[in-house]
């Protein structure tokens, strides 16, 4: 056991470094704040620039007419807006039912080997680059039918959509306490009735959140549309022809050297971001502050969030 002197001796060895350590701490604090600023600046810049440059292009004509001749600066992105709505709507018609039923499978019938591998591969599939999904749609629909079509585009987008909906549906359903199901069983109800009427009713908010977020996600997708709906300058005619969509139109416009094309690109971008951020912010304001739906967001953050 050391004596008091030994202790003093040890203490003397402590470097008089507290000042330095506090300075290092302050420097780290500054670095970290600059990291945050560095991330916020692009976001601010994007929103500002899209709004600033795009607003000049917006007019009734712009929102409803077909594009004028290349470089003329006339016409608008009417077909693109229509196309986005159609192809996203159709994709939802395909993706949502499959996704919801898949989520029900994972949650209500999910305690077996098959479900575990479905869950795993569902997560894996979510990470497939979306351009690869577009190629798949091209190979099984466009090549087979012999032409670019809205079917192919909707199918490709639905492939992006359904795994997300499956996951968020599963999470929402899992959050419904088991007592709900037990009560239903005690009443003598069949399992499918319990699931569809009771459990889903309770999980409604989370499920809708997941669906809306995935709609916002596919609305912005470009790559899978390139080789499926191809793009067009005309309004929707029928399901078996090429179609335009906002992200595609923006891309094609960006490849043109004309200033008028640039302006129209900004305008289309403004419309697109308006729709997408509108869905996101709207969801947040209405629903996402609740505990149940926060869980959905947490899942999505980890698993999704990429846009290809």
């Amino acid at each position, binding site marked *: *056991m*050391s004596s*008091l002197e*030994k*202790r003093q001796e*040890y*203490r003397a*060895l*402590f*470097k008089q*470094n*507290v000042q330095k*350590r*506090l300075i290092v701490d302050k420097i780290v604090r500054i670095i970290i704040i600059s990291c945050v600023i560095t991330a916020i600046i692009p976001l601010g810049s994007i929103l500002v620039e899209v709004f600033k440059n795009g607003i000049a292009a917006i007019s009734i004509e712009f929102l409803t007419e077909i594009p004028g001749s290349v470089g003329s600066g006339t016409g608008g992105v009417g077909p693109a807006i229509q196309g986005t709505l159609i192809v996203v709507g159709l994709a939802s018609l395909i993706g949502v039912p499959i996704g919801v039923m898949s989520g029900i499978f994972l949650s209500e019938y999910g305690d077996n080997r098959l479900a575990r591998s479905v869950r795993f591969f569902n997560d894996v599939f979510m990470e497939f680059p979306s351009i690869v999904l577009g190629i798949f749609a091209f190979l099984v629909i466009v090549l087979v039918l012999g032409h670019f079509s809205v079917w192919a585009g909707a199918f490709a987008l639905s492939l992006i959509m359904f795994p997300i909906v499956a996951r968020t549906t599963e999470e929402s359903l899992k959050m419904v306490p088991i007592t709900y199901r037990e009560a239903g069983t005690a009443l003598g109800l069949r399992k499918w009735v319990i699931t569809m009427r009771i459990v889903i009713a309770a999980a409604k908010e989370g499920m809708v959140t997941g669906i809306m977020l995935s709609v916002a996600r596919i609305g912005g997708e470009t790559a899978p549309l390139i080789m499926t709906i191809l793009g067009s300058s005309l309004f929707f005619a029928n399901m078996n022809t090429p179609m335009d969509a906002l992200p595609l139109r923006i891309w094609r416009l960006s490849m043109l050297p004309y200033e008028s094309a640039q302006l129209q690109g900004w305008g289309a971008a403004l419309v697109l971001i308006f729709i997408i951020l509108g869905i996101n912010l709207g969801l947040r304001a209405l629903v996402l502050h609740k505990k149940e739906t926060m869980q959905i967001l947490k899942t999505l953050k980890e698993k999704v969030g990429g846009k290809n």
Partner: protein
Amino acid sequence: MTSETQTTSDLFENDSEKFKMIAEDVTISYGDVPAVKNVNMKFKEKSVTALIGPSGCGKTTFLRCLNRMHDMTKNAKVEGKVMIDGIDLYSKEIDPIYHRRKVGMVFQKPNPFPTMSIFDNVTAGLRLNGVKDKRILNEIVEDTLKMAYLWDEVKNDLKKPAVELSGGQQQRLCIARALAIQPEVLLMDEPASALDPIATQKIEETITELKKEFTIIIVTHNMQQAVRVSDYTGFMYLGDLIEFRHTKKLFTDPKNDLTAKYVQGQFG
């Protein structure tokens, strides 16, 4: 805010006595709710002071303000003074780092750093303070592990990961880790409550030895432990310091009704 309750105490009447640590009018509140009201305590060098009282009485809250742990708590407000060797820890000029070195702490559940070996755990604080000399580090490791009654059990395998030790051993490691930075005061928050009786006994032996050199303040809910181990005892209830006297006297002849009820086991 002032408390209505007056502490019953017959200690330290003579103010010329030297105290290692003095807590003066300490009031700690979380938001608007006061958890500790106007506590005045003096801690003599090389002594053990126990803080007892029912759950929620504020004893742990008070203990943690002695090394400014409440800086980390979002809503906490500390008023009053805590002085070590005459210097107020809470004065604006003092950065807590200087003085946290003087006051070590051992927590309720053993919490060695899981990614480090026994050796690295003990030397963690030393390395922060710039001590690099291998010889010195080895010396201090041996010294503190001996003080914590752990040396014989681990001396052959200091590189072993700390998490492979048993609970009691981990707690003694935490004591050694706290001792390694050469503190003058050691705070212990129910250090044996998560341990089995044999490990508890070892800890108590350690405390009895350590008080020859350090000033120790220990929070405990185990009254027998307080009797075995401490020289002075303070009884707290609902944030007030009710009675603060020599341990033997407080337990055999409590002056305050509440104290009497508590030590007789009439409430938990």
